């Protein structure tokens, strides 16, 4: 967690006004390892400090925090001296509940982790259970999974960009355009699975039901029209001077720190590290598709925005190929059963490249009907841990867009 010494070291190097010796004295005086007697983050006031440090609790109900999340920031004027992310407001005991329910019963709960990407959450969990129990996924189901996961990526990235712009002050316009397009994809989800967001569609060894008649044509239409919308979106945003001024050079995350902190997904790729689990693990049938992994260079907010836009274009390539090649056939392994599943004793870790990063599920089976241990590796939470390192020395307004560019969903952070 960023609640470590990084604040102290960062204080010396990053804070622009570090030429003021007294401020340095203050940051160094904060000993965060010591159990705090009072609730306040404020250091003991040094009589030599000119002016006072101000502690602000942003959240838990703050429009910029995308949910119930609190940032305790210590400000020197407008500069951030210290930032402590506080989460847990949305804790729903997901892991413990899953240890008490059957394997099948946890699938609808995984929908509610990252509620923008229920399809890919389902996939992560199904993949782990398949590893544990050895079910084979039929060809058609693999294609359906890829199509759903890539549509989910479009939904997630388009929402993220919209919300990021909202954080920057573009009130509504890009977000509403994004939601308009998202709606078309949600309609596809509804037609296939019955629900728009809480899809609960994948099953161990396949998917729950076959695609309805005409679905593929609808999907092709959506995929065909999406690039036009993306072009428009980019014409609206990518060259916009205000966006560039706000985003470039802000919230820079170094490669080394990103790798050491376990950052994954577009956040990591924006720093220029070539790591995409679709390429590394080749889970499902991703080795059959020809797509590139867009990389950023500077690791700032603008790169994160750009990486996501480019990723959407690559997703469209995958979607086109998958919708062209999808075969007829079974949709679920004939041997697979969902009710009363009792995998043999063992453990498995399955991971997928979710839209937000590496989404992993770790299961230990003791041969009974419920998992003995169920653990989620939530990309949102782990990507959030370096928030302080990106924000130190910047202003509150920057912290808001940096948080926006991390792409968190609190349902997944707190579980």
């Amino acid at each position: 967690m960023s609640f470590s010494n990084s604040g102290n070291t960062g204080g010396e190097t990053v804070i622009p006004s570090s030429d003021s010796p007294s401020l340095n004295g203050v940051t160094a005086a904060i000993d965060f390892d010591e159990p705090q007697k009072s609730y306040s983050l404020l250091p003991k006031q040094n009589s030599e400090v000119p002016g006072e440090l101000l502690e602000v609790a942003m959240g838990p109900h703050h429009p910029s925090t995308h949910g119930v999340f609190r940032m305790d920031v210590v400000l020197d004027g407008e500069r951030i001296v210290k930032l402590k992310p506080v989460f847990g407001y949305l804790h729903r005991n997901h892991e413990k509940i899953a240890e008490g329910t059957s394997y099948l019963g946890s699938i609808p709960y995984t929908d509610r982790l990252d509620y923008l990407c229920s399809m890919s959450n389902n996939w992560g969990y199904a993949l782990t259970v398949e590893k544990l129990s050895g079910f084979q996924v039929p060809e058609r189901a693999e294609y359906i999974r890829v199509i759903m996961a890539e549509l989910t990526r479009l939904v997630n990235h388009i929402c993220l960009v919209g919300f990021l712009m909202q954080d920057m002050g573009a009130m509504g316009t890009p977000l509403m355009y994004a939601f308009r397009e998202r709606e078309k994809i949600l309609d596809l989800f509804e037609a296939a699975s019955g629900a728009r967001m809480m899809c609960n569609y994948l099953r161990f060894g396949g998917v729950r039901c076959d695609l309805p008649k005409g679905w593929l044509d609808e999907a092709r239409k959506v995929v065909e029209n999406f690039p036009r919308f993306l072009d428009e979106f980019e014409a609206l945003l990518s060259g916009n001077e205000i966006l560039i001024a706000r985003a470039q050079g802000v919230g820079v995350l170094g490669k080394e720190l990103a790798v050491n902190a376990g950052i994954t997904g577009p956040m990591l790729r924006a720093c220029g590290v070539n790591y995409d689990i679709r390429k590394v693990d080749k889970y499902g049938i991703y080795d059959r598709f020809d797509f590139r992994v867009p990389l950023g260079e500077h690791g700032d907010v603008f790169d994160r925005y750009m990486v996501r836009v480019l990723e959407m274009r690559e997703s469209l390539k995958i979607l086109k190929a998958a919708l062209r090649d999808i075969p007829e056939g079974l949709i679920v392994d004939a041997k697979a059963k969902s009710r009363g599943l009792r995998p043999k004793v063992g453990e498995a870790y399955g991971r997928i490249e979710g839209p937000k990063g590496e989404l992993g599920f770790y299961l230990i089976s003791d041969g009974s009907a419920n998992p003995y241990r169920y653990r989620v590796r939530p990309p949102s939470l782990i990507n959030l841990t370096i928030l302080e390192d990106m924000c130190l020395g910047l202003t509150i307004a920057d912290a808001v867009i940096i948080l926006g560019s991390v792409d968190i969903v609190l349902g997944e952070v707190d579980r």
Partner: protein
Amino acid sequence: MLGTGLIKGMAQTAKNFVGSYQGPERLVTVQYPEERLAPKENARNFPFLVFDGDDAQKGLRCVACQICEKECPPKCIYINKSKDKKPDYIGKPQFYPATFDIDISVCMSCQICVEVCPFDAIKMDKVFELSTTDRFEALLLHKTELAKPNEYFQELHPTEAAEIDTRFAEEKLKAEAKAKADAEAKAKAAAIAAAPKPEPAPVDGSIPTPVAPKTI
């Protein structure tokens, strides 16, 4: 030149603004209570119980096997099994639910109950205008509110309902054929039994000779 990006963006918004009055791909909003979108066939929100025939309570397909109660992840189904049995669609005597409640304030519309029900007795509904001022009683649906006719189900999910109906009809035919065959076999057996048969030879010793009570 500084500002070109802004101007280009403005052009885009202008295009969208004008387009939202004409193009169907930009004009997506529906004026809800007056205008409604047709629901998708697969759409789901809360479960209901299917019944056949005219009597909602007699015709319930549910046999109170309680599988759905056990599998429901948030445990929002409450079933009490009946003490007696009633005939189901093929005439086999089955239990029925004495009470069947679903707390839809807890239900998360996951459809697992539907998936696991072996009797196709519980299906997903599409009504969504369920708001109420009573948080407790009004959201706990009882058997009487949950029971909906098969015709309603056919309307909601035509493909699935047609499939189930054909299967049920086949099963019923089979059951009837079997019943008929059984009846015929029985009749035959009875006829054979009734026909004058050669008297079976008395089996000696088959009837145990009464043992004289021991005298003490």
